[in-house]
């Protein structure tokens, strides 16, 4: 990430800290997290102690009140931890489940849920997707019915990252089925309440994070757990998605860059027909072509970060970056796996893992098709 956006001594020193954390804490345990199927909670506490979990949030709750350039530096380094699943688990907590709370939550709610999240004492998850509603967010059916000062929640959320390790969910539920886009609310639901049940799901990739289906049966939470105004959940979630999509672009690209480097090294050492694979024109063309795409993806990601830092609407570019980064990550994974030959098909191979991990980005956080549909609308079509 050679860019003026990230060139201050503070950015550099911060990058050193995250790189050291990634190198000393995450990378050595990368396969251990895969085997466990999730990162452990102590990891979040350590990150909280270092101030990594509330970069853009208010100092009053333990945050640092910085801009997206610091978040970008952090995720660019975390994305090199050799475990995309762990990376996703962390970014769900920092960029997907807490931004709405930080922006719209009441001081009481932020004291109760945001402050411990920033300290790494609690872990969060975002609960939007349902068995019949994914990228079509307006199709969610989970219902929250008001009963005095409480919501009574019923429904099922699925493909939820951090489902098992999360202490609370940022839930999107229907609170007024007749109010259209004004009928949804974001509600904080603790994971340990009666009526909450988590069933783990088995994924083909992203092994270092846990994913589950969450059932809510007559779960009661205070209406005070509503983030922002009742009925504004859909709009708030759409805003929260911007952070989710950008962090997916940044971590995905960082992982792809690491894989590209690793593949180049492999090709320089791998002998085929008496000479290194890297000396063959097909290899050179492929790696050079991938390098071009990685540069383009980085430039697009940086442009989004710049807009975020400037406080201008970055929706269009974020959507474009999501589409493009995903294509690049999938292409890098596919081509690098091919260059690795049989070894690339092994689970222990970085290329093999990237092949299944990168595939998720085309689905999660808004599928490619949804992104293109959304972008077309923004382009006036």
């Amino acid at each position, binding site marked *: 990430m050679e860019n003026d956006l990230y060139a201050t*001594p*503070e950015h*550099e*020193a*911060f990058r*050193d*800290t995250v790189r*050291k*954390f990634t*190198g000393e804490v995450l990378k050595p345990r990368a396969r251990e997290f895969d085997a466990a199927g999730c990162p452990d909670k102590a990891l979040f506490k350590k990150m909280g*102690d*270092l*101030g*990594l979990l509330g*970069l853009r949030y208010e100092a009053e709750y333990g945050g*640092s009140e910085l801009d997206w350039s*610091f978040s970008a530096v952090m995720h660019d380094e975390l994305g090199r931890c050799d475990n995309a699943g762990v990376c996703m688990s962390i970014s769900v907590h920092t960029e997907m489940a807490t931004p709405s709370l930080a922006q719209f939550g009441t001081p009481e709610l932020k004291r109760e849920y945001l402050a411990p999240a920033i300290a790494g004492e609690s872990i969060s998850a975002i609960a939007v997707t349902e068995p019949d509603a994914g990228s079509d967010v307006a199709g969610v059916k989970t219902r929250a019915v008001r009963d005095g000062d409480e919501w009574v929640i019923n429904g099922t959320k699925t493909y939820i990252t951090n489902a098992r390790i999360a202490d609370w969910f940022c839930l999107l539920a229907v609170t007024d089925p007749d109010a259209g886009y004004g009928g949804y609310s974001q509600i904080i639901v603790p994971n340990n309440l009666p009526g909450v049940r988590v069933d783990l799901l088995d994924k083909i990739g992203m092994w270092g994070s846990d994913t589950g289906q969450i059932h809510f049966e007559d779960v009661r939470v205070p209406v005070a757990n509503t983030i922002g105004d009742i009925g504004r959940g859909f709009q708030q979630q759409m805003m929260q998605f911007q952070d989710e999509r950008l962090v997916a672009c940044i971590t995905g690209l960082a992982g792809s860059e690491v894989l590209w480097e690793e593949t180049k090294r492999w090709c320089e050492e791998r002998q085929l027909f008496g000479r290194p694979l890297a000396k063959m024109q097909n290899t050179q063309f492929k790696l050079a072509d991938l390098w071009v795409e990685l540069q383009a993806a980085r430039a697009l990601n940086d442009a989004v970060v710049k807009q975020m830092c400037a406080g201008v609407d970055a929706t269009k570019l974020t959507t474009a970056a999501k589409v493009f980064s995903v294509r690049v990550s999938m292409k890098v994974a596919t081509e690098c796996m091919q260059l690795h030959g049989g070894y690339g098909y092994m689970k222990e191979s970085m290329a093999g893992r990237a092949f299944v991990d990168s595939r998720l980005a085309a689905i999660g956080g808004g599928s490619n098709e949804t992104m293109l549909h959304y972008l077309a609308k923004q382009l006036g079509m």
Partner: protein
Amino acid sequence: MKVMVCLKQVPHQDARLDVNADGTWIQDGNIKFEINSYDTYALEEALKIKDAGEADVVVVSIGPDRVTQALRTALGMGADRAIHVKDDDADLSDTLGCAKILAAIAKEENPDIVFTGFMSDDGNFSAVAPMLAELLDLPSATGVLSVEVGDSLKCERELEGGALEVVELPKPCLAAIQTGANQVRYASLKGIMQAKKKPVDVKTMADLGVSDAGAGAVKAKIEKVYVPPKGDSAEILSGSTDEIVGQLVTKIKELGVL
């Protein structure tokens, strides 16, 4: 109490190292750098003293603009101030030249303790620390694994074969710290932001009154840096441990090296 810590910025351990065109060093224009790992343990020892009571920790480094990053990281970890010798000629110094520059700073700062790393990850000379101690006429210890601060500095140091030795140095003194001596802390985000307000003094050799360091004073010149050529072949021995040992002994005898 004042503690001075000498830091060197070296290529990052993950950086790809290629020899430069004239074969005298590596291509360092487009690689990442970090604080020499030995020096991070030295800094941690200083910060532990600071944590335990009153201590002013000043970090010192010689090098180009990029060294600012190392110093800012050290300040973010808890050092109080930094001195950056930014001088193109100083960068060309050999180990003795570096020691002379650091000695000039130490004479200005008058620290009670000087900590350095035992060696550098890139040069591996282990020379600057003893030279610096000699130039300052300070008692010193190298290969130090732990220190105990009182009226003197008690140092536990590493010897050959895993043996340990304890020496007691009257202050002022110098200790060159070994890796693994402690658990090096991270620069927290809060620390990094606080470091913005901490001073970094930039000095040249002229500012320090040093004229016998830099390129003109180099006594040990690097003649050649190269990657050893690969051998033609390698033979992988197989079998049980006893069988492999037997084969290995036979090979060694055949080669006549015993």
